[in-house]
């Protein structure tokens, strides 16, 4: 029977929805017994939320002031100390999880399956490679502990309603002091979170400036949408890095994705393959984005976007 340890992602107060997606992934391992590890300075709030996720057998709460900020070098030895009895150790394929889980794998000497998108058996996993242009099925050696990161766009969040027991555990391993958190700058946009939004409006190089992006913010507000960007737009400074969608940005699966002035490079398309409906607005009728768009509109975005805003407003 698979015994799965899921490493929770949180900000100290709230459990990130990425953890609920990891639970769904773990539940695809038939008969899995699922444990969530919450490492925090004060675990009470987050552990209580983790305990509510359906399908979770128990929550391990590791309280330590060293866990105030999520530092992979500090968290990894604690996860390794808990990992002994588990067959699988999973975390989200977010920047937090990708940074941490590979360090865990390194300490364990275990193989890591990155970006798990499907589970065929406790040892067989599907994952995208080459920017999603191929899907690889990997088979782990029998008996080895498998570390994995879970591709967020491939799993729905597990629902609430559970009530798993919470165990406080003391982990006595030496934690390094060689890595120090200084600051994090997260712009508060007031818009929905890009990773989980049902609707996303994204802009490319064609927006021309940070000023130009404002017409997208305005449309997004009307639609209740998050705003994303292509790499070219982020590189040019029109949009902040956390808005980048694609192979090296965020992989998202909204109900509606509106690509505005984005050509549709493969690295960008990787990020939106799982969107339910894709709309493309581009003045070049030959742009590759139209190959994947459910609805394509050829024309000048500076004319179309204000029109669209009026129509949906």
């Amino acid at each position, binding site marked *: 029977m698979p015994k799965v340890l899921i490493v929770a992602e949180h900000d100290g107060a709230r459990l990130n929805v990425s953890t609920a997606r990891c639970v769904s992934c773990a539940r695809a391992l038939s008969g899995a017994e699922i444990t969530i590890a919450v490492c925090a300075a004060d675990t009470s709030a987050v552990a209580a939320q983790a305990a509510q996720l359906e399908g979770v057998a128990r929550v391990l709460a590791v309280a330590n002031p060293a866990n105030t900020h999520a530092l992979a070098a500090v968290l990894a030895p604690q996860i390794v100390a808990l990992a002994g009895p588990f067959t699988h150790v999973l975390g989200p394929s977010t920047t937090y999880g990708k940074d941490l889980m590979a*360090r865990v794998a390194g300490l364990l000497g275990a193989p890591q399956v990155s970006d798990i998108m499907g589970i065929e058996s406790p040892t067989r996993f599907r994952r995208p490679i080459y920017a999603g242009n191929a899907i690889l099925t990997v088979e782990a050696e029998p008996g080895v502990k498998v570390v994995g990161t879970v591709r967020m766009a491939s799993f729905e969040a597990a629902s609430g309603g559970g009530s798993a027991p919470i165990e406080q555990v003391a982990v006595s391993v030496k934690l390094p002091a060689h*890595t120090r958190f200084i600051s994090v700058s997260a712009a508060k946009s007031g818009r929905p979170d890009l990773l989980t939004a049902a609707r996303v409006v994204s802009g490319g190089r064609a927006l021309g400036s940070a000023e130009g992006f404002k017409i997208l913010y305005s449309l997004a507000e009307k639609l209740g949408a998050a705003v994303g960007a292509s790499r070219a737009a982020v590189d040019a400074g029109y949009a902040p890095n956390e808005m980048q969608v694609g192979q090296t940005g965020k992989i998202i699966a909204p109900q509606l994705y509106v690509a505005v002035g984005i050509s549709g490079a493969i690295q960008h398309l990787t990020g939106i393959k799982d969107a339910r409906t894709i709309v493309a607005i581009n003045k070049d009728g030959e742009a590759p984005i139209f190959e994947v768009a459910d609805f394509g509109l050829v024309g000048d975005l500076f004319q179309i976007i204000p029109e669209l805003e009026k129509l949906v407003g």
Partner: protein
Amino acid sequence: MKRILVGIKRVVDFNVRIRVRPDGSGVVTDGVKMSVNPFDEIALEEALRIKERGGAEEVIVATVGPADTQTQLRSALAMGADRALHVQADGVIEPLVAARALLKLVEREQPFLVILGKQAIDDDNGQTGQVLAALWNRPQATYASRLELLGDTTARVTREVDAGLETLEVDLPAVITTDLRLNEPRYVKLPDIMKAKKKPLETLTLAALGVEQRQQLKLARFEPPPQRQKGIRVKDAAELVEQLKKKGIL
């Protein structure tokens, strides 16, 4: 000597549209353009800039890979690396194996900084830097978009994370992995390609380093991704809204 070690992987060029072999045994790589992993070019560029500012005396590039990888090591030397280490190995090299081999080179060369890419764009694993840092028991600062050396003992690194930008301070030596916006790699000039031919390139083997080429994940099957259905063209914003409403999306 103050050294920086940069990890280089040979990958299918990012412009190539990859195809899966019909029998599912892999992707077509015959006759396909191969390049240095783009994130590794960024890693090398950063190392070269540190050296040019007087922050390092030597930049070493290292790879674990087949004989062909020498081409990419030569381009790295042409970009400005001082010497190259080639650990020859064929077949699948998992991140754990690459990291174990890099660790051996780290122990030998004693760099104060190791810079790798955040991910190789072929396997998209994104693991090797973190695994190396774990095995070496040293700090890691992944997804770097800014790297600043504070004297000889500390680095301040700005990281691109989901929430925005995070700043860490790490003691040296440390492992840094690069994100796209750390820098823009220089173009190689023709005379540099000639000069690179004379730079030292040392060939080693995994066996000589005492690293076993273990494969813990078998590559069972490759498939093309599901294709999206091609959609329809609409003539204007009004028709778009009408269609979206009809589908129940708006």
